């Protein structure tokens, strides 16, 4: 926003040892967030990815002043979390998991209340809300009560309420949980549009595809700590790269094929799985032709080939030994 030449841009979020400990009845203390240091830059779509109970939501609630940290400090939109709460709240937007629409009021009435609470005059609020309703293509539903909305429509209104004050930073807690795929991509589209318009986004999700599709950087959170941080591509590169799987007719054929590529510089790691040979390489696209040529010189060329990119789930498995999908389902 104020990127004057030469000036170093302050991060939109900066935390130092941010910690939250809850008193759990009869079970001592639960450390939901354990000393997280994090820097998020202006203009990013930053995602906290992790299973339910990892501490994502607690982290977010501290950053948007809903929870007081037990320890550590943070600045958000340049304001101290504790000392400068009022200015902080004016410059952020927040969309919680439940949204918080008053269901017997219309979408427009909900947005008007929100706008008036940001100290707009009635005329100013009406103008802002009209513009927002038009921009998010909500005109057809704006004057119906919120209990008539579909989950997807309600979610877009939630989003609208979160940006009534044109915040510099928008917090989204699990923005697409429980939505059908079509509504989900609609939400993604609007979030991207907001980001293109200059709003920084901080979101939590336990959907890998969401982090992958939407986020410029992702922090993987597990048990109250960040276990990995980077762009989705960087994180995926941390695991052993792409996986090529060559299928054979017999175990003897696999063993013979494995010997052929044993010393190849392209091969990071190889593993025999039944009658399949799995080879990890940095770049599957580049390695595949060369490996095909090499394996073709043996007495039994491969019958099938499969190229798989690593997913953020692979990263999670590598870092924690558990799969994210399984964790989320049992939680």
């Amino acid at each position: 926003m104020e990127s004057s030449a030469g000036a170093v841009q302050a991060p939109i979020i900066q935390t130092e040892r941010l910690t939250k400990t809850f008193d759990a009845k009869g079970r001592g203390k639960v450390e939901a967030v354990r000393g997280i240091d994090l820097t998020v830059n202006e203009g990013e779509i930053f995602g906290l990815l992790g299973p339910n109970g990892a501490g994502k939501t607690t982290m977010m609630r501290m950053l948007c002043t809903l929870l007081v940290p037990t320890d550590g400090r943070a600045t958000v939109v340049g304001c101290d979390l504790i000392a400068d709460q009022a200015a902080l709240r004016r410059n952020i937007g927040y969309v919680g998991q439940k949204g918080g629409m008053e269901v017997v009021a219309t979408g427009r009435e909900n947005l008007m209340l929100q706008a008036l609470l940001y100290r707009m005059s009635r005329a100013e609020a009406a103008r802002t809300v009209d513009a927002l309703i038009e921009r998010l293509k909500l005109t057809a539903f704006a004057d119906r009560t919120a209990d008539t909305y579909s989950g997807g429509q309600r979610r877009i209104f939630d989003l609208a309420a979160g940006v009534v004050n044109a915040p510099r930073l928008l917090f989204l807690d699990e923005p697409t949980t429980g939505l059908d795929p079509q509504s989900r991509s609609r939400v993604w589209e609007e979030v991207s549009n907001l980001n293109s318009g200059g709003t920084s986004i901080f979101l939590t999700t336990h959907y890998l595809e969401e982090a992958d599709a939407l986020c410029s950087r992702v922090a993987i959170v597990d048990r109250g700590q960040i276990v990995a941080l980077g762009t989705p591509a960087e994180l995926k590169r941390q695991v052993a790269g792409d996986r090529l799987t060559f299928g054979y007719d017999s175990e003897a054929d696999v063993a013979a094929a494995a010997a052929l590529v044993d010393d190849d510089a392209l091969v990071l790691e190889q593993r025999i799985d039944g009658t399949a040979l799995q080879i990890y390489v940095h770049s599957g696209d580049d390695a595949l032709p060369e490996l095909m040529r090499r394996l073709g010189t043996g007495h039994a060329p491969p019958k099938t080939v499969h190229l798989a990119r690593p997913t953020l789930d692979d990263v999670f498995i590598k870092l924690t030994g558990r799969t994210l999908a399984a964790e989320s389902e049992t939680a």
Partner: protein
Amino acid sequence: MRDAYLIAKNELLVTVRNPYWLFHGIVQPIIYLVLFAPLLNGVSHVPGFPAKNAIQFFAPGLLIMNVLFSAGFEGFTLQDKVESGFLERLRVTPISRLALAWGFILQSSATLIFQSLILIACSLLFGLRLDVLGAAILLLLIVLIGVMMASVSFTLALMTREGGILAGITNTFILPLLILSGVMLPIGFGPPVIQTISHLDPFFYAVNAARALVNGLLTSVSIPEAFAVFAVLSAITLALFIRSMREAVA
């Protein structure tokens, strides 16, 4: 204070669109008025019964009963707002916790005045003769009591977070408070123990004052007594509510 007004207005809009809560409190007193007040006529000649006409005795107490059943259950609406994420949404805007708390209190007071006017109108149909100035002062007292009941209920709602627990606590306390207040029958009918305990029930003073006010006994000492009791109690409970609103992890 504009914020408190905005919240109250929004809450009133919600109440009007979904008037269940508007009538939740008022239904019980009306049933009492229709079914119980005529029974009282039968005992109004018993020695010790304070009024010749049962309605003059019973109707003022009904207005106090309504405060218990109406403001005393306000916490449930607040719990809905925690559940829906509405309160959370507001708490991230620049609105102060104080304004938020006052907004809910204002809404509850407005609802209470509206309900009281309906009850007075119904009682007039049943032959109540009321002192207009006294009734106006009574409305002030009702608002004051309502602030206390709503504050208690709101605070419990934020503390318990669960409708079942809140309902349990509320129902457990409301019934003895109601009986000991002397709304139904004169406390003078009871044994000395009950008479003594009833003096610990703040609603005992409220009901006495309400009777004095409706019947035009404006110099009765019960009136300043009731205002004093509830000024103190309302101030304490309102402070508690504002504090829990500040701390609430909603």
